[in-house]
Structure formats: structure tokens, C-alpha cells
């Protein structure tokens, strides 16, 4: 049996094995045994989709041509994986929460579920990925031809045949396992399992060749290292800009390539798997690249001049007669190529069907989403056709480029194209200010520059871009030469394109974002994406009400399938506590439904479909409040703090005042006690003394007796008055006093007060100035009590006024609802610090002028309160001024 036949047999067997693995995994998943299908190990291995045939074969080729540069392609993804904590964890949480189905869906969903952006990213992805698929086909046909060369060679016609059969087989596999279900999670257990197996195969293959080369050919590690030093590699030579640029490029590509995004985010089953992958995938990359240099060095050594270094992995074992190893190596390359094509086709078909086919279909079908018929089938069909189209596009590209050398560089060209998504993606994840227009501007600028400076020239000079443009620049402007924009020459073509495209991309993205204003839905999504860990709820966007649940049900059935849709509706009906099987179209329900639909047809399409039925794209007030929530919380919190501190200082002030007052009251009480005992003691002493004289003196004239007795009488009266005051106060205070209400004029009350208090015992005359014409107000009140208050005020003025010629002005003012009587003397007034004390019991302004017990004003205030009025001291007036206010009601009642 010839080698080629054996190869075909092994290849077929391997393909059947893969079909079996995928089939078994799908069966297991259906039986609910997903636990071990979805382990961290499988997740890590599936990430190896990043390592395609281009890296399997091409890494050795690159090492043979450019030295260590090949390492950058692995260092970039390693850096990304190491950044799992702040970058990938967030990305995956966003992907899971928002049910992201592809990178286009991510961008579209972040920027207000924009269909235009989604379509743009999809087109970019298709343009960038098609040559890449062609590259995989090329690598497989090349490796076939290597084996064929052993026997009788492979004609160009046969190469095309191989490529055609391969693409058909891959399309079949992808359709079978990639579109089995349109399920909610958009996860493909069978495909992921097959990829994980292929990941193991390519690692084992490359490691085997490497171990064979180091220990079998070179004779040990030390010898291998010597050999490296002795070879063309010699010393460290690397283009510095390419070293840095390629690390960035590969890191960006790892995040943005549709296939890596598919396995990294969409197929992720459990966030904790990322924790394992964060170190396990770098380990995988490290192992994959470990033996590349030794293989390249040995290949350069033993292979004849001019042989293709891209195939050293295959040709070195063959040349050394290790056919089994070569076969394993072939399978490794085959695995790399097939797994890439499968996942890329799935990812691209999801994007094409969700973001291009479905919107057009929705637009074309006259009655929109509520038309009858199975959308589910339509979506699946769209996806299947997309898969076949994508793979066939790759095949056509391969045929057209006829496997030329142009393909070899297409890997990095594709990387550079898809890296244009990076600013919009990272900006969307970390910057709330990024807007849809900004993202669109950035993507467009980057895409156009990439197309012009890298993609179109990559087809070869003169194929698409005419020579004139390459030589003289666009429109003959030299500064628009595709390989020297703005006249900057000397840069490597790839780095030149990367620099300018990323620069314009980022500048346009940021500046347009800064000057444009996002729509409410965009701002909502921005808050959701950027603060994904704060509130892992999804965007609320529907304020339903007009939505017909039946219509939604019809639509959901056609997309999710009848069983699943009914289960979903029933679950929400139960949650809402609704009777029957249909939930009310609340915003919560619509949001959940949209998310479910989104996981099948993408966020933008789902949004549009629900929108057609609910008939509105309104955002409820609660949603806006949720966006404002954060700011509001901060504001509210600081306002509360301020309020609290103000309240605290107010309380402290009050406490301080109260304390001062208490202290003064305490001093006053002491003073009063000593005063009252003095006041009581003085008359008592006189009474005792004179009564003793009366008792003990035998010869006493009647005049003397009478005088002594009258002294005793006077003193006893003084005592009684004092005690009366005390009693009076306590009676008034306790509210036990009975008011003797009767009619009378204010003038009478004042007359009485003036006559009884105007002239004191000491004979000091107080000049009282009155205006009797205004005093004729008829009052209905307790006139005796009122006179008592007036007496007190007049007596106080007489006692305390320190002017040489004491004078008291009594003014009556009649206001709308009250009568005001001011008592103003011409003295120096009451000291400000004593003002708030004078109405307290036992308060006296000074000890020297001690006249009463200090109860007068306290009684006055109590009396006035009982009469419904008030008595206050006016601190601003000249001299001591007391203001008595009587409610006019009392006066009116009397009229």
C-alpha cells in the first residue's frame, strides 16, 4: 500500500473518529451528563483553536526565516490569559449576562444594539477570515503533496480535489454539529469536545517531533542548544518594532478573532473555568512553541537547499525515515486546520445569519416578526447556508490565489484586520463614554486604512491595486502611497499598516465618542457593561403594555421551539403569579424573553423582533433611574452626611446653651434660696425681737406698744405677701387658676396698675407717659390678672430703672388680630446675657436691688399664657422694653 493511500485511510479513520467523538459528546450532553464534558481542562484545550495550521507548520517556517519572531504570536495570548482577572473575567461575565453570541453581537449590544455596527463587524470578520480558511486548506493540501511526493506526486488538479473534498467534509461536519440546535446557550458540546481532542493531537504531534529532533537527532538538550548557537540563528536578531508590534497584534487577535471569541466567551460554561485556563493555556502555548526552534535548526541543517521551511515538521521526520512520526505530525497539522475551519465557520455563520440575514429577512417580510411560519427553521437554514458559504468562500479564495506565497502572510494580515475591533471592544468594556458613532467611526477608519495599506496589497502587486497607486499613491498623491502613508518610509509593511490603522481607529473612536451624545439605550448598555460586577442584571429596555403576549408566544415558539418557549412563558407566568399559562408583558418578562431570543438570533435582531410586537422602543423611567442610580446614590449620601453634620452641630449648640442655662439656673436657685431665707428671716427676726420686747418689757407706753405691734403686723404682712407670691406662681403654673372673665377697658386695667404701682414705698416717683386716647379698647378677659401683670411690669420699671429721672412710656397698639402694649423705660436695659433668664423663677437681674423674691415676671408669663397672650422682653429697643401681647380675639369678644 502506498504512503498516500495509507495517509488517506488514516485520515478518513481520524475524521470518523472525530465524528464519533462529537456525536458521543452531543448524546452525553442530551442525557444531561455535561459535567465532565464541560470541565476546565476541556475549556483550556478548546482555546487552542487559536493555534491553527498556520502556527503548526508556519511557526517552524517563521523561525527558519525570521528567527525568534514566531514567539510573539504565542506571547500575546499568554499576556491576555494572564490578564484574566481584570480583562477576561469581565468579558466573560458580560458575555454570559448579556447572552452574547459573537464578537459582532458584543459590539452591537454594547452600542445600543445597533444593527449597523453588527453588520460592519460581521463584514470585517468575513473579509478577514476567508483568506485564513483558505490558508488552512492550503496547508492540508501541501502536507498531502509532501506525502504524495514520496510516491508519485500530486498534480495541481488533485490538490484542488483534495481541497474541495476537505472543505465539503468540514462544511458537513460543521452543519451537523454546529447547527444541531438553536438552543439558548449557543453552545456546541460535540464541536467543543472534538476540538479538545484535536488540541491534544496537535500538541502531542508537535512535542513528539520536537523530542525526536532534540533527543533523537541532535543527541540531547545541550547539543541541541549548541546546534542552535552554531546555526544561522547564531545571535539574537530581532526587528524591535516587529517584536513589540506582533506581541500587541497577537494579543488583540486572541481577543477579537471570531473563533477564539467563540470558544473563549460564547462556549464558556462556567466562569471558574477561566481560573484554570489562566495558567493552563499559557502552559499549552509554551509547550507548543518549545521545540519550534530546534526543529527549524535541524530542518535547515539536514534538508536540501530551497525546501519549504513551512513543512519541516513533516519533512524532517520523513527525510529521516520516521514514517509513523510523520503520520502523527500530519494528523497534528490536519487537526489544527480542521478545528480552525469548523469553529471559524460556526462563529461566522452565527454572525452572518444573526446580523445580516435575519435583519434583511425581518425587513423584507411584510408583517415582520409576527408572520406565521417557522422562524426557527429559517434561522437554522440561514446558519447552515452561511456555514457552507463561508467554507466555500475559503475554498474559492484558495483556488483563486492558487496556493501562492501570498497566502503565507495572510495570517498576520487577518490578525491586523480583526484587531480593528479591539478599541471599540475594550472602550465599550471600560469606558462609559464610548458611543455608537465613535465605535463606528473608529472601526471604519481602521478598516479602510487596513484595507488600503495591507489587505489589498497582500494580493500581490498589481492584482487589485494597480501599480500606479503603489508607486505614486492614490490620485497621484505621494503621501497616500499604501506602504508609506504621510511619507513615512522605512517601516515594515505590517507594522506600518498596524500603526496607522490603530492610530486612526483609536483617535476617531475617542474623539467622535467625546463629541457625540449616546441614545438612552446606549447609555443603559454602557452602564451595564462597564459596571458588570456591580449589577449583573441585563439592560431593561421594554416598557410593554401594548404588547400582545400571544404574539410574543407565537414568535418565541418559532425561534426557541414550541416546548422551550412554552416552558419559558409558563415559568414567567408562575413567577408573576398569573393565572393561566401566559405571563403579562411586563418589562421584566420582555427583557428575559429578549435575552432568550438574543441567544439564538443575536441581541440586535431580538431587540428588533420584540420591538415590532411591543410596538415601542421606550425605556421606562425605572431604567433611567437605574442609570442615574449610581450618581444619585453618591449625591444622596453626601447630602445626608451634610445634613447629619449640620444637625449634629445644631444639637451641640443647643446642648451647650442648655448647659449654660442650667448652670445659671443652679446659681440662681442657690441665690434664691439664700435670698428667700434672708427675706423670710428678716421679717421673722423683727417679729421675734419686737414680740420678745412686748412680752418681756413691763413698763411700756401704749404708744410704744402700738408701734411695736404695728411693726410686727407689717412684717407679718410682708411675709404673707411673699408666701402669696410663691403660692400664686405654683397655682398659675399648674393651671389650677380660675379665670374671672369679664368685660372692661384696657384703660381701667392700666389705671389700676399705675395707681397701685406708680409710687413705691421708697417714694421714688416714676414719670409715666401714657396715651389714654388709644387705651379705650374693650377687653373680655380676667382684668384682675391683667392688672397684676401690668403692676408687675410698672413696679419692675420703678425698681430697676437706673436713670436719674426714671420715666416709663406705655404705648398701646391695636393690630389686626392682637393688642400690643409696650412698657419702655429710659434706663440702660437688661444686660444681654441676663435676657433669657428674666422670665425664669427666682431670677433677679442683680442682687443689690433685691426687692422681691424674683417671681414677678415668671408669674406674669404664666398669667399671660393662660390669657392666651404673651409677655416678652424686646432686646433691640432702647431701655428695658417689655411687650405684652393680647390676642384680639379676647378683645373682639368683648365688643
Amino acid at each position: 500500500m502506498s504512503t498516500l493511500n495509507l495517509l488517506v485511510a488514516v485520515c478518513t479513520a481520524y475524521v470518523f473518529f472525530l465524528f464519533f467523538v462529537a456525536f458521543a459528546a452531543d448524546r452525553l450532553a442530551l442525557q444531561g451528563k455535561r459535567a465532565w464534558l464541560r470541565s476546565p481542562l476541556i475549556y483550556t484545550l478548546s482555546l487552542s483553536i487559536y493555534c491553527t495550521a498556520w502556527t503548526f507548520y508556519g511557526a517552524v517556517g517563521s523561525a527558519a526565516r525570521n528567527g525568534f519572531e514566531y514567539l510573539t504570536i504565542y506571547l500575546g495570548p499568554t499576556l491576555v490569559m494572564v490578564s484574566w482577572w481584570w480583562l477576561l473575567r469581565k468579558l466573560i461575565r458580560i458575555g454570559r449576562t448579556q447572552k452574547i453570541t459573537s464578537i459582532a453581537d458584543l459590539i452591537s449590544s454594547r452600542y445600543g444594539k445597533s444593527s449597523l455596527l453588527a453588520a460592519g463587524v460581521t463584514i470585517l470578520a468575513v473579509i478577514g477570515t476567508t483568506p485564513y480558511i483558505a490558508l488552512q486548506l492550503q496547508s492540508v493540501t501541501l502536507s498531502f503533496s509532501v506525502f504524495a511526493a514520496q510516491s508519485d506526486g500530486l498534480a495541481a488538479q488533485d490538490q484542488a480535489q483534495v481541497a474541495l473534498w476537505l472543505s465539503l467534509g468540514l462544511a458537513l461536519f460543521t452543519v451537523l454539529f454546529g447547527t444541531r440546535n438553536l438552543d439558548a446557550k449557543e453552545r456546541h458540546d460535540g464541536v467543543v469536545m472534538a476540538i479538545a481532542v484535536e488540541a491534544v493531537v496537535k500538541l502531542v504531534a508537535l512535542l513528539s517531533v520536537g523530542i525526536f529532533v532534540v533527543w533523537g537527532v541532535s543527541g540531547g538538550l545541550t547539543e541541541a542548544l549548541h546546534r542552535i548557537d552554531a546555526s544561522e540563528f547564531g545571535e539574537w536578531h530581532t526587528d524591535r518594532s516587529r517584536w513589540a508590534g506582533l506581541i500587541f497584534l497577537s494579543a488583540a487577535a486572541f481577543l477579537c478573532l471570531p473563533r477564539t471569541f467563540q470558544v473563549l466567551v460564547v462556549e464558556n460554561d462556567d466562569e471558574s473555568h477561566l481560573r484554570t485556563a489562566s495558567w493552563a493555556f499559557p502552559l499549552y502555548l509554551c509547550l507548543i512553541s518549545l521545540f519550534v526552534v530546534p526543529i527549524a535548526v535541524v530542518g535547515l541543517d539536514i534538508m536540501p537547499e530551497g525546501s519549504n521551511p513551512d513543512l519541516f515538521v513533516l519533512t524532517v521526520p520523513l527525510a529521516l525515515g520516521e514514517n509513523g512520526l510523520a503520520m502523527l505530525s500530519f494528523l497534528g497539522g490536519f487537526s489544527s486546520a480542521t478545528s480552525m475551519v469548523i469553529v471559524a465557520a460556526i462563529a461566522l455563520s452565527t454572525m452572518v445569519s444573526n446580523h445580516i440575514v435575519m435583519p434583511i429577512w425581518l425587513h423584507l417580510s411584510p408583517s415582520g416578526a409576527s408572520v406565521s411560519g417557522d422562524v426557527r427553521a429559517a434561522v437554522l437554514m440561514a446558519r447552515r447556508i452561511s456555514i457552507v458559504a463561508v467554507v466555500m468562500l475559503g475554498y474559492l479564495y484558495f483556488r483563486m490565489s492558487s496556493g501562492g506565497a501570498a497566502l503565507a502572510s495572510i495570517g498576520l494580515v487577518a490578525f491586523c484586520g480583526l484587531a480593528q475591533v479591539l478599541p471599540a471592544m475594550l472602550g465599550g468594556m471600560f469606558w462609559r463614554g464610548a458611543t455608537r458613532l465613535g465605535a463606528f467611526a473608529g472601526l471604519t477608519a481602521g478598516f479602510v486604512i487596513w484595507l488600503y495599506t495591507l489587505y489589498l496589497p497582500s494580493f500581490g502587486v498589481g492584482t487589485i491595486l494597480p501599480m500606479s497607486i503603489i508607486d505614486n499613491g492614490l490620485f497621484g498623491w505621494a503621501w497616500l502611497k499604501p506602504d508609506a502613508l504621510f511619507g513615512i518610509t522605512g517601516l515594515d509593511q505590517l507594522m506600518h499598516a498596524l500603526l496607522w490603522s490603530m492610530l486612526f481607529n483609536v483617535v476617531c473612536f475617542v474623539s467622535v465618542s467625546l463629541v457625540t451624545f449616546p441614545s438612552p439605550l446606549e447609555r443603559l448598555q454602557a452602564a451595564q457593561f462597564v459596571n458588570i460586577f456591580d449589577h449583573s442584571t441585563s439592560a431593561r429596555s421594554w416598557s410593554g403594555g401594548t404588547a400582545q403576549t400571544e404574539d410574543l408566544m407565537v414568535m418565541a415558539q418559532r425561534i426557541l421551539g414550541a416546548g422551550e418557549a412554552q416552558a419559558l412563558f409558563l415559568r414567567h407566568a408562575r413567577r408573576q403569579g398569573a393565572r393561566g399559562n401566559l405571563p403579562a408583558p411586563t418589562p421584566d418578562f420582555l427583557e428575559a424573553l429578549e435575552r432568550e431570543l438574543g441567544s439564538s438570533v443575536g441581541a440586535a435582531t431580538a431587540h428588533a423582533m420584540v420591538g415590532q410586537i411591543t410596538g415601542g422602543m421606550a425605556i421606562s423611567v425605572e431604567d433611567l433611574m437605574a442609570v442615574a442610580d449610581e450618581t444619585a446614590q453618591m449625591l444622596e449620601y453626601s447630602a445626608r452626611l451634610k445634613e447629619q453634620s449640620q444637625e449634629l452641630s445644631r444639637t451641640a449648640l443647643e446642648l451647650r446653651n442648655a448647659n449654660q442655662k442650667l448652670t445659671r439656673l443652679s446659681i440662681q436657685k442657690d441665690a434664691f434660696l439664700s435670698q428667700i431665707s434672708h427675706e423670710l428671716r428678716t421679717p421673722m427676726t423683727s417679729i421675734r425681737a419686737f414680740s420678745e420686747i412686748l412680752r418681756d418689757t413691763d413698763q411700756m407706753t401704749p404708744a410704744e406698744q402700738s408701734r411695736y405691734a404695728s411693726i410686727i403686723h407689717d412684717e407679718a404682712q410682708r411675709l404673707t405677701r411673699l408666701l402669696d407670691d410663691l403660692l400664686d406662681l405654683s397655682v398659675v403654673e399648674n393651671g389650677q387658676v380660675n379665670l374671672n372673665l369679664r368685660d372692661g377697658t384696657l384703660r381701667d386695667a392700666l389705671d389700676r396698675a399705675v395707681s397701685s404701682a406708680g409710687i413705691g414705698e421708697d417714694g421714688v416717683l416714676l414719670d409715666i407717659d401714657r396715651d389714654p386716647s388709644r387705651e379705650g379698647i374693650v377687653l373680655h378677659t380676667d382684668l384682675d390678672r391683667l392688672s397684676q401683670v401690668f403692676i408687675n411690669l410698672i413696679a419692675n420699671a420703678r425698681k430697676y430703672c437706673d436713670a436719674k429721672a426714671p420715666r416709663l412710656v406705655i404705648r398701646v397698639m391695636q393690630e389686626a388680630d392682637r393688642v400690643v402694649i409696650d412698657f419702655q423705660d429710659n434706663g440702660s436695659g437688661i444686660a444681654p446675657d441676663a435676657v433669657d433668664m428674666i422670665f425664669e423663677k427666682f431670677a433677679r437681674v442683680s442682687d443689690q436691688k433685691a426687692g422681691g423674691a424674683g417671681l414677678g415676671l415668671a408669674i406674669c408669663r404664666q398669667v399671660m399664657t393662660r390669657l392666651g397672650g404673651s409677655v416678652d422682653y424686646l432686646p433691640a429697643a432702647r431701655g428695658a422694653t417689655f411687650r405684652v401681647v393680647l390676642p384680639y380675639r379676647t378683645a373682639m369678644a368683648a365688643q
Partner: protein
Amino acid sequence: MKRTTDRPGSPTVFHERRTYRRRRVMDAARVAPGLALILWALPMVWPQTGEGTVSSATALIYIFAVWAGVILLTWGLSRLLADEADEPSDDES
């Protein structure tokens, strides 16, 4: 996930020792990629010609040694951060 400590309502300044440690581990996980990037950028400043050029074998060993170190570091950090990463997600469906 809402973490109460991040709420403006209760800005906690002092954490217990364990919480403090965990936060520093998170910081370490954030700066680890920076360290790796710097170490791998170093070859750019190696002399390319003349005296002191680095031999290919040495360069190869250096890059892979850094790689091994990065893998070990990430492994250690991912183990320390196990509790954080496994926090239950809000996926209700």
C-alpha cells in the same frame, strides 16, 4: 455581584486582615501581566550587533524561563483567588 464595601453607603476603610490580604492578591493579579510584558520586552534592548550580543540559546532559555515563571505565578494567584472567581453568578435562567 454587589459588594457592600463598594457601596457609597458604607465606605469601609479598614478591613480585617484576611480581606486585606485578598485585596492585595487581586492587585497582584492585576499587575502580573505588566510584569510579564516588561520581562518579555527586555529582549528589545539587548544589543543586536557587536560586543555583548546574546546567543540564541541564551535568549531561548530566558524567554522560556520567564514563561515558566509567569505560568507558575498565574497558577498561584488563580489558586489564591479561587473564592472570588467562584462567586455565584446571577445567571437566573
